[in-house]
């Protein structure tokens, strides 16, 4: 059995920080050096500027950066001041300079069966603007030197609740474009992580704001690690990457959010308690009773797995019971994977909840979205202009997606079928 090969394309400052930290710290053989950092930094600023914050606390990582910067850091576009929080500009720069980006992607030497994870913060301009376009191009028409890669997942990071209206406006436009682009499904899967929600889960208080970014990034890095873990050699029931997106695509719901419970002591917490704990730590605001899909990944010490103290079968049973307790109508899709980790002494669990109601996410951004949208004017520079017509189109697209999701949730939560009647309809007396 071969482990699935992964690659990461991170666009924008925030995403650059996350992807670089993941690359430097985890050294995951499934990723190797297939990490690409994209940015539209102005010409007079060093490309490593977004990472200076990391180097300040961990100087040894600068050396790692130096090793990869020539082939793995791509500065694209010609705007003198970056995308400036304007996703339209970020997208236009990516379109205009795609040939440059393409060369860097080709340099990752990806194969058709490989998986790409695109990362962007949805409140910004560069990543939010460029990533949906890049996903669209790579999946449909990647250009010379790159094979078409369908397995292109997206990790979108939602802004803090308190952030300015334009960032929430960007978020809704970005989310719509990650889900659908030019009228077609775009990313194979969209994983959402909300900064404020992660902060709440971690219990970060006001006085700790200095380290907030670092801690939130750490959580996102853990998510990436858990996402990739089932593809590894030590997985007891490998979730093939196709499982991550084939069926959700068929169901028309491709949004997910991770729920993490890390560093659990297997001598104290039962697997059941660990799953419960994870499900209370959703990384985006949601009503988990509306979730319709769940991928459960548990990373356990190899020794415990080898001794049979933690088994795939037990995990399957517990997952079933857990889904019955928490998912809408027990859910329509569920995968479970136990991964034996030789390095770990604790049990880490991730539940990737999917197909849930986007209501709480929309609630936090919608008002600010309208505040910004209603103030848009047609008098700005043509190159950076956000066209109202396009925004309306994206809004319509997102509404359709939400309506479909809500309908499926309602159907699942609604009355169960009368099996006696159903069996009669199938010809059983």
């Amino acid at each position: 059995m071969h482990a699935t090969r992964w690659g990461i394309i991170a666009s924008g400052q925030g995403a650059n920080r996350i992807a670089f930290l993941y690359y430097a710290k985890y050294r995951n053989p499934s990723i190797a050096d297939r990490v690409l950092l994209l940015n539209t930094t102005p010409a007079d600023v060093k490309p490593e500027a977004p990472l200076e914050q990391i180097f300040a606390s961990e100087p040894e990582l600068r050396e790692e950066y130096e090793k990869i910067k020539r082939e793995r850091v791509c500065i694209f576009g010609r705007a003198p001041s970056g995308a400036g929080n304007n996703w339209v500009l970020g997208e236009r720069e990516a379109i205009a300079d795609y040939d440059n980006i393409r060369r860097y992607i080709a340099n990752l030497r990806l194969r058709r069966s490989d998986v790409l994870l695109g990362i962007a913060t949805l409140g910004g301009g560069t990543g939010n603007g460029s990533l949906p376009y890049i996903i669209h191009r790579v999946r449909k028409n990647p250009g010379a030197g790159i094979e078409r890669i369908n397995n292109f997942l997206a990790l979108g990071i939602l802004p803090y609740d308190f952030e300015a209206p334009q960032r929430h406006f960007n978020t809704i436009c970005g989310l719509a474009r990650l889900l659908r682009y030019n009228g077609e499904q775009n990313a194979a899967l969209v994983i959402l992580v909300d900064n404020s929600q992660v902060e709440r889960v971690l219990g970060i208080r006001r006085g700790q704001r200095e380290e907030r970014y670092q801690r939130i990034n750490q959580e996102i890095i853990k998510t990436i690690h858990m996402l990739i873990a089932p593809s590894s050699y030590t997985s007891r029931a490998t979730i093939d990457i196709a499982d991550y997106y084939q069926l959700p695509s068929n169901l028309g719901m491709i949004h997910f959010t991770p729920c993490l419970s890390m560093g659990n002591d297997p001598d104290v917490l039962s697997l059941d308690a660990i799953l419960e704990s994870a499900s209370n730590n959703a990384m985006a605001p949601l009503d988990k009773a509306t979730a319709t899909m769940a991928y459960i990944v548990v990373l356990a010490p190899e020794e415990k797995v080898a001794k049979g103290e933690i088994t795939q079968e037990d995990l399957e049973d517990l997952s079933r019971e857990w889904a019955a307790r928490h998912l809408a109508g027990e859910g329509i899709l569920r995968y479970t994977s136990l991964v034996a980790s030789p390095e770990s002494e604790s049990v880490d669990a991730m539940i990737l909840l999917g197909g849930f109601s986007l209501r709480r996410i929309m609630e936090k951004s919608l008002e600010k979205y309208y505040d910004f949208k209603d103030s848009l004017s047609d008098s700005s520079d043509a190159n950076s202009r956000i066209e109202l017509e396009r925004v309306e189109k994206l809004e319509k697209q997102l509404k359709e997606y939400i309506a479909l999701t809500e309908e499926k949730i309602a159907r699942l939560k609604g009355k169960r079928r009368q099996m006696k009647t159903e069996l009669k309809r199938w010809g059983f007396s």
Partner: protein
Amino acid sequence: MNEYVITAFVVLATLGAGLFLLLTFGISFVSYIAVGVILSVLFASLVYTWWKSKTDKTVVLLKIEILNKIKSSLSKLEENIKEASEFIDIEPFMRDLKRIRNELISKGFFTKDFEVNERKIEKITLTAIELESRKVEQQLRSLESLATASYIEAAAKRLGELLSAARTLLESGFSVKEEYEELRRIVNMPSASLAELLEKRRRGEEEYLRIVDKCISEAEFLLDTAENIADVAHLRKELEKVKKSRHDVEVVHRLVRVRSEASSYLTKPFLQAKKEIVGYLDKVLSFSVGFEREEQAIRELRDRALGYADPGYLAEFAAVKEEAKRLTLELARALAKEIVALEEELKELGMRKIRRRGVERHVSKLDPRKEFAEFTKEAIEVLRTLAGEYSTRYKTVKIAKNYPAIEKIISQKLAEKGRVSAEELKVRYAREFLRHYSEAHPEVKFEKNALILKG
């Protein structure tokens, strides 16, 4: 011969050249050249003579070396054949060797005392000596082959007997497994030449003697122990006979009889000793949970003790007891080390109430020089104390380290349902976590008997 021809040629050439020069340039010029030529020839002659004598010496040395080699091969084969005399008739071989020796003397290679005849070999060419050497080597090789063929069967028979006798001793219960395996390895060693066969036989005999000696010691131990229970004088006499004929494979039956009869008197003490050791190791095992390496070693020792099936193994128990003491000490040290590490963790967790009690003093109470019974009595007490302290601290650390995560789970459950029971929590030490939570959150009510938190 060649030297004379060359000299004559040079003289004639010189006279010819002189005559030619005399006719062409006249007497005065030629006399200078003649003196020069004479001096050059004299010098060349000196150089040639020196070189020639040196070469001659090297050739003589070479001849001596070849002849010494012949002498050494002859002597070695003679020695080997004499050593093999136990199993083969060496007379014809010795006769042939003598013939070869006499021939070499008669040809002038050696003196009557069979020393290299340096004076005579000067006249014999190197090629002739080399030819003689090859001839002798061939003769020796065929003699050795004949001797090997005669010896091999007898040697194999003897080694087979030794191995079979050793197996009998092993199977009768003597602790000679390692030695038996070594003997088997020696017997199976490849051996093509007579020298190799002799070496194999020598080593086989030595190893067999080692086995018999070890068995004698074991039998003596059994007789010493059995002497207090029964009259074993006749068995001692048997053992004396064995000591006198250690090489004889027949003595193994006497040894087996001594062991068997002595063992029959020792059934009761054997069973008692076995029960004592296995019982003790069972107790030690109960304190080793969580210490895999130590647990494994103790379990193996217990299995070893259980594997001794008859009283003849009584002697082995002394070693088992010593090993049991050593493993006890190892476990006690491991427990103490873990207790210290857990105390450090508790300190880091800010739990100052837990004070270090100097666990090392418990370990130092254990003195392996004491008698087994006394040692085990103290050891059980020490292990019980250490295991108790370890268990308490382990639990405290686990609770302290996991409380933040469990606290969150409890809070979430209380927020959802207003109550949480130990059963719902699905964690180890649920009672302690609930109690701890109620202490940290006075607003909630802890029903101790039902193990339910409400709030």
